[in-house]
């Protein structure tokens, strides 16, 4: 079925500030969903808290608006319970890298098949502009009483170090490019991360749309730039090249795909090899009741065999031979 971006809009009034970079992200997201033709019932957007956290309410797919910093673990639970679902995380820089940094790192280690889109405006908008972990040291944006006393965390480097297998950066105002990256990220089997530079017109008067227009350049403009790992032997050199690129900030900021490694097994594939039936019968699809009367699938008899190591058969008489339940 042909779908248009408007099919993926809820029609709720979007209450972001005029000129907010989030509009670009929302547009790119709905365009990507439409072009990918994703089934709204089988697509889930999970968000944290803040302006970015409201995104799911504006998109007509399943939306889970969770706790501050916790979008990734929620999304992990959803995806692992039912890997058939397409899962996208929308979070702010404070959300994903401040309060949620541990979860951000853990997702990389696991390489769960999902896409994390980070709304990176370097400030905490809904609480009036405090510095986020991506604001450079010494910078004083509008809402700050003093220059930022804490250093900047490099999200692209952190994603690379954590093990994300698709790492990209985009500019919120370049909807077409962002849409392309979102499509690539969603199609990638593994943990994908897109750092979206998102101007905040209300609190961030330093990293503005005009600033980014002047400083940003596309990685794919370089015909020799190839971030894709096609053979395990390339893993090291491609990651090092990506890290070197990720180090660039001012005066020029690269956007595009930094690293793409489709060879690392996703968490789902790892589970499949361990649990045997995982992909055919993921947790959410398993039958736990036999019949209509509520009888548990695991019954006394199967339990006795399954937990043989816990079972001890009492000997009949002291003359009898030892009867010990066999190990499974």
């Amino acid at each position, binding site marked *: 079925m042909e779908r248009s971006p408007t099919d993926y809009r809820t029609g709720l009034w979007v209450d972001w500030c005029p000129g907010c970079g989030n509009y670009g992200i929302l547009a790119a997201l709905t365009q990507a969903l439409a072009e990918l033709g994703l089934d709204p019932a089988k697509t889930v957007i999970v968000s944290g808290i803040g302006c970015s956290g409201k995104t799911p309410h504006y998109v007509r797919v399943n939306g889970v*608006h969770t706790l501050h910093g916790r979008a990734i673990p929620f999304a992990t639970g959803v995806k692992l319970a039912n890997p058939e679902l397409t899962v996208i995380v929308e979070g702010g820089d404070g959300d994903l890298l401040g309060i949620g940094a541990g979860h951000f790192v853990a997702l990389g280690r696991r390489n769960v098949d999902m896409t994390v889109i980070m709304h990176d405006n370097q400030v905490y908008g809904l609480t009036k502009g405090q510095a986020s972990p991506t604001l450079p040291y010494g910078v004083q944006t509008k809402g700050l009483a003093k220059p930022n006393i804490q250093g900047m965390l490099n999200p692209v480097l952190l994603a690379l170090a954590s093990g994300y297998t698709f790492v990209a950066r985009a500019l919120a105002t370049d909807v077409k490019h962002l849409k392309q990256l979102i499509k690539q990220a969603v199609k990638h089997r593994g943990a994908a991360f897109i750092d979206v530079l998102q101007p905040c017109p209300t609190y961030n008067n330093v990293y503005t749309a005009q600033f980014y227009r002047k400083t940003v350049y596309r990685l794919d403009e370089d015909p020799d730039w190839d971030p894709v790992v096609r053979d395990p032997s390339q893993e090291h050199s491609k990651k090092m090249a990506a890290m070197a690129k990720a180090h660039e900030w001012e005066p020029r900021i690269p956007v595009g795909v930094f690293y793409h490694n489709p060879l690392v097994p996703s968490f789902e594939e790892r*589970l499949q090899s361990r649990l045997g039936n995982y992909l055919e019968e993921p947790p959410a699809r398993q039958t736990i009741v036999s019949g209509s009367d509520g009888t548990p699938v695991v019954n006394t008899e199967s339990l006795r065999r399954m937990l043989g190591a816990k079972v001890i058969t009492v*000997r009949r008489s002291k003359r009898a031979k030892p009867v010990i339940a066999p190990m499974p």
Partner: protein
Amino acid sequence: MPLSDVKMLIGGPQGTGLETVSHVLIAALAYNGYGVLSGREYHSNIKGRHSYILLRVSSHEVPKSLTYPVDILAAMDPETVFTHCADVSHSGFLVYDVGGEDTRLDKIVSMESYTRQRIEKRLQREGVEPVLGKLVEYLESKGVKVVGLDYRSILSELRERHGIAPHMLSRFTSSVIVGAIAGLIGLDEESLRAGFSHRFAARKQLVEPNVYIAVKVAEHVSSKFGPRLILEESMLQHEEYMVVSGNEAVAIGKIIGGVRFQSYYPITPAQDESFFLESHEKLTDGNRQLGSVLVLQTEDEIAAIAAAMGAALAGTRAATATSGPGFDLMAEGLSWAGMNEVPIVVTYYQRGGPSTGMPTRGAQSDLFTALFSGHGEFPRVVIASGDHLEALNDAVEALNIAERYQVPVIHLLDKFLANSIATIPIPDTSSMTIDRGKLVTRVEAPLNYKRFSLDELVSPRAPLGYAVSWYTGDEHDEYGHITEDPVLRVKMHSKRMRKMELIASEIPEEHRAQLYGYTEPDLLLIGWGSVKGVVLDAARILEKKGVRVSYLHIRYMSPFASKLVGKAIGRVGVDRTVAVEHSYEAHISKLVAMNTGQRITKEIVKFTGRPIYTHELVDAVLRILDTGEKRVVLDYGA
């Protein structure tokens, strides 16, 4: 005359084979049809600190509680004898290593200085020089029968016989202990072989050398050391037993109850449950795979509850397990579950607090944390289990209630239950059902689905994947979208909150609290969790002394069985009601007051991190009756 009940304490350094002693003995005893209950005490330490097993075996029941003094004190090292010299009955047996007789108390480096000073003072009072040999002589003079064995020479013999490498020998100390106990209580070779085979099912080469030593020692002990403590044949009718810890009982309940996703962050004493689930992740019956449990070790407890909620939203029966400090981290998630009507089970194993407190010791001091943590108001069910069978059944029930009412359920246990091992019958699933509540997978208009429909208190729940729905931690409309409208807020918040009334009306009070014993006793004890076993045992002993004690066991902390509890206390009178709890404050009294208006002012509490033992509870009850004392603080145990 053969005995129907034997109590023993086996002690030694952590990590040197106590686990093996416990496993082999329990398996060998179960093999003979006995009921066994054993508890384990240990420090927050991997190797070297003093640890011990308190074990009780009975020919006519599965013991409900542990008590002192013990009939057998078996020591792997001198520290055990010093630490527990007052724990052995004056007609009991001491098994120890004569090779350590010269050990002086002040040379035992693994002992805490405060503990040492306390023991030193005690020995001084008794006029005993703090040397192991002297202490043994003293105990013998008091009537204790001393079984001195030369561990080293016994093991050297093994070395010659089985070619065990010298550095491996100490690992066989456990079979010397097992053998000595077998000799004293009358376990034969076949039983020992059964015990060791069970323990070493995966390392069969270890069975024979161990059986060899144990049998040798058993023969030596039974021929050399006078009248023993022979156990009478078991009168129990069970043909088979399952030997499980409390952690494992819950895990088995979760497997039956359909948990297919469990997330956790490692914390004592909860982690063994998730470990057990992970080692049985493939649910197989012969060649058939019935399912699997996905066990996810998360980066912290915050992620654990969040991931479990995510899995629950996708339609999985999901749970997590933790202890106090971890539960604190889960509080914000719990609140989200309350707002979003997520069926989630949090298994909560209490341990000694505050803070990291006594991380490997038990407590019941988190009652109010379980009841009130999380911000805002939301309905929750809190169930507390009193023993291994309850723990197993409650795990199934917690899952059913979570889905039937779409609420978070906290299943409350404590370290005493978690780490104690009992022989239970194989769980009978024919009496268990799985109730998934209003779970729907067919939605007529999936793009126009009202997840939080106001038509019913419990709305039909379509998991993610079957319709388009929204969830938010903010107040929301029927679709799940944010709202701050005051009128809608009243409707939505009331819908959630009124579920508590529904739950209370559908689960009978008799199911939520049980009265054991007389309706008009001399004294009514009230408690919850693992207090159950010790109170029931104490009541039986008190009965023989002419004191009639009843026990009111609270299983549902929320919703509380207010009428039943109020009536039970009213009949006896609040002056004759005593709260029993492993805490300083006897929190249950406050919960009773909140729900019934009756203020219990008498209490028996223990907060040493060790369980309440039967003998001290009996004494405490008598003190309250005889002297009118209002509060007894118990402290027995090492």
